[in-house]
């Protein structure tokens, strides 16, 4: 049934057409027209994605090749899409969440004037296009195209309000940090090409598994490639050390944060590693690195989130932390758990971001939670959905977050007890800071200005409906992966993904242990929530001090990077520009000219004008030449 899948090219193409229409026609189209095009194309993609999903579910997974993107010598890189179980899930997440956020955006961005509105939607469509390319690509190069494409859109959207230079700085930072990862990704691709001679997933995995005899893919190669790919993933998925761009990326409009910096783009790294699971499984070193980095990121980001006061910053660090969890899952071999968490995270994090958007909208742009409080009365829907999101992320059963997080924790537990301990602690912190956020925002007294209080209102339906849908998804989303101990065959996700992600060896954990762990984590989470309630029910503003200040300042990581990387490079550039370039290299070049000039001035003096000197010089040279001829050259 290859023919049937042939039309999947429409899935990315439609958003791209939307991008073209909105981009080129932004000065001419009305806002409603723009919204229609923007949402419509995504909706069409969504429909097609659902169709593709059904096809895949019916066993029609496969690859469709359109043309050769690059064909040089032995190397052929086809422009091909691969639609299989993994990409189908991501297609659904991207188009589904993407569609909701598009709809939400029509209301959220309504105050923008028409050209900028069009620009916004075209970028958003372009993003969806790139993201779809990323997950549909049948080889690493097409994936990379999408990979860089989403980075570009992220850049464009972070800097959407380009009149503020700090936003643009944040956009630049995001792009550059992504590029660092991208470079590693690229080198990995080249490495693969040098060993495999191709970049198609199928070929690469076949060689790795030793199915192709004349090609060699040694363990070292695999380790190098996987590590390089992982560096790429750290850039895109905001892991240590390349995570600092993500909080800054909150400069963009909130729906963008929801879509790009929470639900989809940042999970590209997870997707990539899950896609390459065959390679990773063959390299324990890489796996460990992934797990450790993921865990460290999760912990670090969680600690930072404890003390953040910007509503979006808290969510951003929470995202980084959750991504860390996903990498922990990948590193411990629980690829399915990671994908599962990607999905649930997409729901509840999008929900939380959109909810925060709703809050910000209501507050007239205010983002500092210290100036909020007691909003639950005015923003009922927002409050309830936000609460759902918080519960989901905290991992309280039976909301979606519980199932996915539990799978991860379980995997960590089987892998390493210390890791489990840290992961559990991090999960507790998550519950704490999320509810801190919730309580500071919605309970207590309103702490903002009179004007803001007067202005408070619930958001329009275009914003609340997506919130509600996402809340529902956050509640029920976990049911695709119910652990086997509850319902036999409940883990539909693992079964569904098994063609792409081979079944891992069964957990060697007894049922009782598993139950105990679940109970433990659930209990701890509830305890944390209560602790947060006590602490932040009636919040009073106070300056952070001591360790708190360190956390508030994000462990001074940005400052550190600035000091050890950015400034030295900047200084080096200045040194090269003003000293090396001008004095040394150009100095040499000009020096030759100067020497000639100086020589000219000096040799000119030989021409003294005195006949006597001329004859003297002539006779002297004659003597010299005679001497050379008769005495020196023998």
């Amino acid at each position, binding site marked *: 049934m290859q023919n049937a899948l042939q039309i999947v090219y429409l899935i990315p193409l439609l958003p791209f057409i939307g991008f073209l229409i909105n981009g080129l026609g932004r000065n001419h189209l009305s806002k409603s027209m723009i919204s229609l095009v923007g949402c419509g194309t995504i909706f069409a993609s969504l429909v097609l994605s659902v169709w593709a999903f059904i096809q895949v579910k019916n066993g029609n997974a496969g690859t469709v090749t359109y043309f050769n993107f690059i064909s*040089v010598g032995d190397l052929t890189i086809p422009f091909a899409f691969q639609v299989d179980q993994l990409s189908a899930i991501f297609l659904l997440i991207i188009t589904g969440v993407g569609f909701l956020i598009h709809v939400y955006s029509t209301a959220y961005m309504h105050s923008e004037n028409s050209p900028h509105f069009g620009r916004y939607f075209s970028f958003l469509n372009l993003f969806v296009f790139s993201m779809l390319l990323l997950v549909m690509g049948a080889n690493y190069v097409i994936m990379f195209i999408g990979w860089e494409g989403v980075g570009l859109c992220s850049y464009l959207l972070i800097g959407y309000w380009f009149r503020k230079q700090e936003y643009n*700085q944040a956009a630049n930072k995001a792009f550059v940090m992504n590029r660092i990862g991208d470079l590693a990704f690229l080198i990995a691709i080249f490495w693969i090409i040098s060993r495999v001679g191709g970049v198609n997933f199928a070929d690469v995995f076949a060689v790795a598994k030793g199915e192709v005899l004349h090609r060699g893919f040694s363990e070292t190669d695999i380790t190098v490639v996987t590590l390089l790919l992982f560096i790429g993933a750290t850039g895109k998925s905001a892991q240590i050390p390349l995570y600092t761009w993500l909080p800054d990326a909150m400069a963009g409009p909130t729906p963008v944060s929801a879509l790009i910096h929470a639900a989809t783009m940042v999970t590209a790294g997870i997707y990539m590693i899950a896609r390459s699971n065959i390679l990773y499984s063959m390299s324990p070193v890489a796996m460990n690195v992934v797990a450790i980095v993921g865990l460290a990121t999760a912990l670090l980001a969680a600690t930072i989130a404890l003390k953040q006061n910007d509503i979006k910053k808290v969510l951003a660090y929470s995202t980084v932390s959750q991504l860390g969890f996903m990498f922990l899952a990948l590193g411990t071999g629980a690829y399915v758990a990671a994908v599962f968490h990607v999905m649930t995270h997409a729901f509840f994090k999008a929900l939380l971001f959109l909810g925060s958007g709703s809050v910000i909208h209501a507050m007239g742009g205010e983002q500092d939670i210290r100036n909020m409080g007691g909003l639950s009365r005015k923003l009922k829907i927002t409050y309830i959905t936000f609460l759902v999101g918080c519960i989901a992320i905290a991992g309280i059963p039976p909301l979606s977050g519980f199932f996915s997080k539990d799978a991860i924790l379980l995997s960590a537990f089987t892998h390493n007890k210390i890791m489990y301990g840290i992961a559990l602690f991090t999960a507790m912190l998550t519950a704490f800071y999320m509810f801190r956020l919730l309580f500071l925002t919605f309970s207590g007294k309103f702490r903002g200005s009179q004007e803001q209080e007067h202005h408070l209102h619930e958001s329009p339906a275009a914003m609340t409906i997506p919130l509600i849908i996402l809340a529902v998804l956050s509640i029920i989303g976990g049911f695709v992966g119910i652990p086997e101990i509850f319902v036999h065959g409940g883990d539909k996700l693992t079964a569904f993904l098994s063609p792409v992600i081979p079944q891992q060896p069964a957990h060697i954990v007894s049922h009782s242990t598993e139950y105990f762990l679940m109970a433990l984590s659930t209990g701890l989470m509830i305890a944390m929530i209560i602790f947060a309630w006590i602490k932040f029910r009636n919040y009073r503003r106070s300056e952070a001090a001591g360790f708190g200040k360190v956390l508030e300042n994000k462990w001074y990581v940005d400052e550190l990077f600035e000091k050890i990387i950015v400034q030295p490079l900047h200084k080096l550039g200045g040194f*090269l520009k003003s000293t090396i370039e001008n004095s040394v290299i150009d100095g040499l070049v000009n020096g030759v000219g100067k020497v000639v000039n100086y020589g000219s001035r000096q040799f000119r003096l030989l021409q003294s004008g005195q006949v006597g000197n001329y004859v003297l010089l002539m006779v002297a040279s004659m003597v010299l030449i005679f001497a050379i001829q008769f005495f020196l050259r023998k």
Partner: protein
Amino acid sequence: MIPVLLILIPLLTGLVTFFIKDEKMARAWSLITSVGTLAVSVAGITVFKDPGNLQRQYEWMQQLGSSFSVKIDGMGQVLCLLTAIAYPLIFIGTWKTQYKKAGNFFALMLLAQAGLMGVFVAMDALLFYFFWELALIPMYFLCSQWGGEKRIRVTFKFFIYTFLGSVLMLIGIIYLQSQTPDHSFSIKSFYELELSNETQSWIFWLFFVAFAIKMPVFPFHTWQPDTYEQSPTATTMVLSGIMVKMGLLGVLRWLFPVLPAAAYGWGNVVMTLSVAGIVYASLIAIRQDDIKRLVAYSSIAHIGLMCAAIFSENKSGMQGVMLQMFNHGINIIGLWIIVEIIERRFGTRKMSELGGLAQKAPAMAVFFVIIALANIALPLTNAFPGEFLMFNGILNSRSSFYLLFTIFAGLGIILGAVYTLNMIRKIFYGEVNAVTGAAMDLQWNEKIALGIIVALIFCIGVYPQVLLNMTDEISQAIINKRHVLEAISK
């Protein structure tokens, strides 16, 4: 016949242009003729592509062993096409720029085109040298007469520098000619030479210095930023878009296959220089405030990558270079067109004095962002396949430092992003100020030129194969030449 036409049309029309006194006439005339050249070039690729049409040989200076031998091979096709496309683009893009004595200006531009075409199609070393210089002289006059304040000193340095390089090359050419059995300058005789490694080794530098100065490769580059800065922008476009390709073509056609052992032996040194140049130029570009200088340094970085890729000595690198030669030309001309617009409208090239243009001139911003991003090789723009192949080439090169080269060259990608985005940010984003307050958006001519460029960027970005197919044979031939020699020596 095609190669002869490609040289003759701009040459003759250029000479005619000297006598056109009316500015508008000169402008229109040169645009029309350049479109004619483009048509011929395209015809050579599509319609008249049998070998009979693509090569010609006339008797000329037989006593010296030279002949007027021209041929368009795959590389020639790409570069001639680039030259042919670039000229109309330049003329359209700078349609509104006023020149004193416009007739002379356009005449010299067309003469330079003739020289460039000649360099790209010459299959005789002496002829190659002739055109090499012929392209330089009009450029010198263009830069010196219509350039900025420091133009005389700067372009003079440029001229002497490149002249010095080319006379060294002349020595190399003469030496090689004296070594050929039939005392001929033809490329065939050169290719059949089998010189000892020591001989190759020193001749290599005679040639390479000439090409390195032209490209320019670090540390022979210092003429370049000054010249780009001081030249009239139309000329800068020719210089940076097309002329630097002369150096690359020289290496590919006249150095690599002729002195394969030396190219192999010195490969590491050259690659080190090139890669060092990438990082070096990128770091300097980060600190530039002058747009022209920034673009100039970015060009050095890009050329460094191409040079390194050539010396990776494999198909991927070769093909990447050939593709990128075209792309780099297109992209950088696009950048210059906008730089020229900015300079003309606001009278400054300092980024610190600009800002907020995206509000006043959104179309310009869009075009600029697209071209700038293409310049840093974003996927689906034309530069991506080129850089991809080149990096792939470098990583797969025989050099034992391949990984180091790749990583340092890769730093160029990152630093490239840094300075490019900073440039966009400083020029287009932020609030408008006194300088940019009264900005005007693009005019029709600029839109046409930039539109064509952007279209090319995306077309090649999505389907680079159209160019890769052209150069497939020739790059394979260059590689083969090297491999055959290696087999013999073993």
